[in-house]
């Protein structure tokens, strides 16, 4: 009958519908509200920066794989996603070559040289941002809103907090900042989508934000500044905390896979963010906190191997 034509393979014989591509697509979808808002807020220049960053990332991946004879993986959408992340992490005022070299750096130096998808030990977009900030500090810190060059809310907060935008403006995004970080509302819509689609779990983002707030609140309190909910709200809704916690710290390749490890990773990122924001010369600490914690991931994972089912329990007892 059908002899010799049947496929013989090892179980399981069913696979879920999810693929690398569907996951990357979901993250891109989750970033669309923030992207649209950036374009609405900052105008067509933001759109051009976004497109250039995406094209730069996709082209870098394609060219690198072509040049090194590796299998082409542009269709898995991971490079496009990295490009989008690069765009969302820079101000729209940058010259147009900035998103292109940022993306090229992210893809070639951080991702491909370390082995490609899943092998990068740092978040490529954040590493690119750090590279750009260090190389072109002035270009990377021109924040402008309504065509008026302005400081970001965290800059103002650090300088003493006079003339702060209203919390409502800060939440919706009518403020200066990187493309993707200004509208907490748009980011939270995307974050909810990622949680519902189970692309990310609650552990990293909630523990990260919770720790940042707790540490800042504690330091403020012990410095005799009391407990100021308004002040803390600015720390959550302005700057890169929401973008970082939900979208960057949850990057699969550069965050732990173990549940306990994810919590340790998030607590670490929260502490570092709070310390940088309060004690360093920079107003913002999310990117560096995540990059710093990325370096610890192999060690965190090694020490958080979960217990196998039943291991270490008192057997036979309820």
């Amino acid at each position: 009958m059908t002899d010799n034509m049947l496929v013989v393979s090892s179980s399981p014989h069913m696979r879920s519908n999810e693929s690398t591509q569907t996951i990357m697509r979901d993250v891109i979808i989750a970033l669309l509200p923030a992207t649209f808002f950036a374009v609405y807020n900052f105008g067509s220049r933001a759109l051009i920066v976004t497109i250039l960053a995406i094209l730069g990332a996709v082209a870098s991946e394609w060219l690198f794989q072509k040049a090194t004879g590796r299998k082409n993986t542009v269709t898995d959408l991971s490079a496009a996603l990295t490009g989008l992340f690069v765009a969302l992490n820079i101000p729209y005022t940058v010259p147009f070559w900035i998103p292109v070299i940022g993306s090229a750096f992210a893809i070639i130096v951080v991702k491909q040289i370390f082995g490609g998808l899943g092998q990068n030990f740092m978040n490529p977009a954040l590493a690119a941002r750090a590279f750009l900030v260090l190389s072109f500090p002035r270009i990377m810190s021109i924040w402008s809103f309504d065509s008026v060059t302005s400081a970001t809310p965290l800059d103002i907060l650090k300088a003493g907090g006079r003339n702060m935008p209203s919390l409502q403006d800060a939440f919706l995004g009518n403020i200066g900042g990187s493309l993707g970080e200004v509208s907490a509302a748009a980011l939270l819509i995307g974050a909810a989508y990622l949680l519902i689609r189970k692309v990310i779990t609650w552990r990293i983002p909630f523990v990260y934000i919770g720790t940042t707030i707790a540490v800042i609140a504690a330091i403020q309190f012990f410095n005799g500044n009391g407990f100021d909910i308004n002040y803390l709200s600015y720390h959550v809704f302005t700057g890169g905390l929401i973008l970082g916690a939900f979208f960057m710290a949850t990057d699969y390749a550069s965050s732990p896979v173990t549940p306990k490890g994810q919590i340790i990773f998030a607590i670490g990122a929260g502490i570092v963010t709070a310390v940088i924001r309060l004690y360093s010369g920079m107003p913002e600490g999310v990117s560096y906190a995540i990059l710093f914690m990325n370096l610890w991931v192999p060690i965190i994972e090694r020490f958080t191997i979960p217990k196998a089912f039943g291991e270490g329990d008192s057997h036979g007892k309820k």
Partner: protein
Amino acid sequence: MGALTFKRGIHPKDFKEATMNKPVEYILPKGDLVFPLIQHLGAPCKPLVKKGDRVLLGEKIGDTDAFFASPIISSVSGTVKDIKPVLVPNGSKVEAIIIENDGLYEEHESIQPRENIDELTPEEIRKIIREAGIVGMGGACFPTHIKLTPPPEKKIDYIVVNGAECEPYLTSDYRVMLEEPDRIILGLKIILKLFPEAKGVIAIENNKPEGIKILKELVKDEERMEVVALKTKYPQGAEKQLINAVTGRTFVSGMLPLDVGCIVQNIDTVIAIHRAIHRGRPLMRRIVTVSGGAIKEPKNIKVRIGTNFEELIEAAGGFIEEPVKIIAGGPMMGLTVFSTDLPIMKGSSGIICLTKKEAELFEESSCIRCGKCVGACANGLLPMYLNQYALRKDEAMFLKYKGMECCECGSCSYTCPSKRHIAQTIKTTRREILANRKK
């Protein structure tokens, strides 16, 4: 009380609607019947008959002195046509007795209903179960009489009847709950007689509400029995996970359910016990789910053990589309076969014929470290690491990351978005390590 469950696991689409509402159909074998001499976990049997012998329905045709074994019983009357190696579903060739069916179904004298059930001693009950050739019918084929004979120091306080049936497509256990529920109770009573301290718990996934309802009604006056609903989740029917869901107890590999006071029996095995004790009938037939997109009329078929796969496929209307993959058992843990010229054995729970679309073979891509396999692993392992160590042949790290705790349920491969063959490489490495240990 809410549905009970274990931690983690997956929710594959179950495809049960194709057969779950169809009453079990009964077919008689057309061709010769084939009885491989090993249909259980343990030592192979030796033939008790020779070529040319006439055998009767219910007659023992194969047995061994080995402790870990279960005899082979003829499911028809007829003549021994040959004794030779045949292909069995796991791809190996096994010595088998081939019987030409005379169509008379003349019963062996040992088949006698029993009146004096209450007078049977536990030893007699175990002996009857052994002689009836009963093995675990969920597919693992562990000899039932051995499972029911724990060392005296092990106190058994739970008999868990496994009605989870968590493999997609398979619905034979569900049909049994609807069609022969009273026999489940009778069978369980016999087991409880062996374990006076134990409580009988019939555990059913909550995607089978009818089954839960019917059995709940039947046990409402039974002091020592209970029916519990389990969350529909894979691998809810795995022994460790099932015991954990029902009793909250846990154990690691190397330990047996009886180490935590539990014995798990598949629901159809319990019926087989009832038939052997009350009606004197050995294990001669089973219910097989014939389903999958390539099958014209998916159905559950009650069939004599030894019947050829092809007769069942024919009884299910044959193929509407050329199958690309045929699975003996369920799609999560079953084995693919490369021929349909195979006998139904004691553990044959399903014949699932998948179309090209259903059996799509995916290309592996790089691990993106999404951790979904970690979230799926019912045994709390890190499958992505085990896959890496398996591929690198790093046995030390494989053991350090507790690869031997894997139950091979396949949840990690199922859930992997990069379509990596995680369960497959882990399984192979486990086999290699076990084989080396035996040496």
